[in-house]
């Protein structure tokens, strides 16, 4: 008995001393995203955008007088790897918060561990509507999941609205079989039904499929007058290529992933004219956007940002998180969450300017008025309607609650 309590005492002492050590070193923030595989262009752009924000924060003296450091992990877009990384970041690296998650499936699988450990997560790319609604009170005491991207219910509503506005009546949906594709497809079907539109075909394919002729032909046979997509870069290219191969002249619209460099490069001329919602288009329409684009180009020696949306949202997520840590005046997860839900400082971001972006019941920084429709022209994403990013419309703010 004696020995046992002594051992426990020693263990406690060891724990305390590591906790004390963590107090003095840099603040660790986890960053989880796919740096390899089909979603890599989003993961890499998100990371690079976040790093720009981190460098600015550290240059200005860090947070709470300490430097901030990323613990980066490549989840390869795989759910099981995302779970392993979450456990590693929480238990071994003892991060105080995590940003990232490109893939809805990975977010849904990994977030549980952060929720249990009471560590806040800012999703800066994943768009599945239920991502921020997994742990709602009263079932859970507090929700630790936040988001700085436009969720699928916003995006699918925009796409459905565009379909209706253009006067198409027979939409076909082609989506991949991942959580992202199927949850998005469900949102899209709902948004279409709400507008009195009914899909004539709903097709599906797997990641890594190389031939989408069957899917395209079914949609064509059903008499579709517009093809709507919910998938990621390489497979989107295969889909559009199959549509063109059939000699089928049909407009293509879909979720924001139609802006991925891997789609535009692989589909080439076939990608021209597709429409998708975008929170950020690589156009210097505000001073903040201009300086962000220039900083990104200088730091990574590229002209075209591989995924501008991911880069901008990644950048903004770090500004919000570091502001919250500063306001909480603590690295305690509960206090950071409380600070995020009541952020007093106004923050000028790339996507928008944030004034109390989150509340206790609303963890979505982006509202339906913020994204604009983008299209592909000359191998780059440009605003479908140039007036959308000009003058007073350039900066769209979340309406006050």
């Amino acid at each position: 008995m004696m020995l046992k309590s002594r051992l426990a005492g020693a263990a406690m002492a060891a724990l305390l001393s590591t906790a004390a050590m963590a107090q003095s070193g840099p603040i660790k923030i986890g960053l989880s995203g796919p740096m390899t595989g089909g979603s890599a262009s989003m993961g890499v752009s998100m990371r690079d955008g976040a790093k720009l924000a981190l460098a600015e924060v550290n240059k200005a003296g860090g947070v709470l007088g300490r430097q901030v450091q990323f613990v980066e992990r490549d989840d390869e877009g795989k759910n099981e790897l995302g779970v392993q990384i979450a456990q590693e970041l929480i238990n071994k690296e003892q991060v105080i918060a995590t940003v990232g998650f490109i893939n809805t499936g990975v977010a849904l699988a990994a977030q549980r561990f952060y929720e249990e450990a009471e560590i806040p997560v800012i999703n800066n790319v994943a768009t599945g509507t239920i991502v921020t609604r997994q742990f709602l009170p009263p079932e859970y005491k507090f929700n630790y999941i936040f988001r700085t991207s436009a969720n699928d219910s916003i995006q699918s509503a925009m796409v459905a609205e565009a379909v209706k506005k253009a006067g198409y009546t027979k939409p076909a949906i082609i989506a991949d079989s991942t959580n992202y594709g199927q949850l998005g497809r469900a949102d899209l079907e709902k948004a279409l039904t709400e507008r009195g539109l009914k899909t004539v075909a709903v097709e599906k394919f797997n990641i890594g499929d190389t031939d989408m002729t069957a899917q395209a032909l079914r949609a064509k046979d059903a008499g579709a007058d517009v093809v709507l997509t919910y998938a990621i870069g390489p497979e989107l290219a295969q889909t559009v290529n199959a549509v063109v191969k059939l000699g089928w002249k049909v407009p293509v619209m879909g979720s924001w992933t139609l802006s991925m460099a891997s789609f535009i490069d692989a589909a080439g001329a076939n990608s021209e004219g597709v429409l998708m919602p975008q929170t950020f288009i690589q156009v210097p329409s505000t001073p903040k956007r201009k300086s962000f684009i220039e900083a990104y180009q200088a730091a990574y020696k590229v002209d075209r940002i591989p995924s501008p949306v991911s880069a901008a949202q990644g950048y903004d997520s770090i500004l919000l998180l570091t502001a919250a840590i500063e306001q909480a005046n603590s690295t305690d997860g509960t206090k950071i969450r409380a600070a995020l839900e009541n952020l007093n400082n106004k923050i000028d971001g790339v996507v928008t300017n944030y004034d109390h972006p989150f509340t206790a019941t609303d963890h979505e920084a982006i509202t339906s008025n913020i994204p604009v429709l983008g299209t592909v022209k000359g191998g780059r994403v440009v605003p479908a309607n140039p007036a959308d990013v000009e003058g007073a419309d350039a900066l769209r703010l979340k309406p006050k609650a």
Partner: protein
Amino acid sequence: MQNFLQILVSGISVGMIYGVIAFGYQLTFSTSKTLNFGQGEALTLGALVGLTAVSVLIGFSFGNLWAYLLALPIVFVFGMMQGTVVEWLGVRQAIRTKSEAGWIMATIALGIIFKNMAEHIWGKDPLKFPSPVSEVPLNFWGVKVRLMEIIIVLGALAMMLGVELFNRRSIYGKAVVATANDRDAAGLMGINTSQVITFSYALSSLSAALAGVLIAPITLTGANMGAALGLKAFAVAIIGGLSSGLGVVVGGLILGITESLTGFYFDTGYKDVPGLILLLLVLSFKPAGLFGKTAIKKV
């Protein structure tokens, strides 16, 4: 009818690719009773080396078609070297020590290493492979066929025919056949069987590399392109029978066509199911494959 033919065409071209990769499995299995589980990665490397060669040649102001044709020998030589490396590092030791499973782990490990190398050299994003021929589809009575799809079928057939002729007509080919029939007896007759096995691995990776450059222009080239194809081709090899060259080609066509037909006439979400059911049926009723010779293993 038009739709049926359209679906058939895409099924055949996908099936031919499965067939060529599976042919590679069959080549090494016949001589050494071992397989290269990194066959998908051999395909990836072939396509990526082809991409680099084609890009360099286009830089020397060759047309797309000439660049593609001139790149082919480079890809073949690279494929043979890659296969030789796999055999030296992964399989030789296992055969010598009569290890039952050592080569499985070794070839899988080498596959992972090759994939990581590819990611390191060519990056992680899928790349566009410049098409050697026009990408505008041809129109046969309403059925749209890309020229590259025809080239896939012809290229695959030419490769398999070439190997078959080599085995039947040349003295070296006869050594391969002899080793496949009875390795010990062939060894006693003075055939250097370990060299024959090395050669079969070289040829196996060559066929995968060829499959890579054939499919690259109609899909995308990238470090992950081979994984799914390698696995599908393995199913094809089981369906067709690992001991029969003709079997794997037919197996490939069966799988490719059933996939496309199910996708179109039933549901695109269930595309992969009939192939897997077929695999289970074959394993239950004819474990050596549809065209395979049933071997009795004496213990």
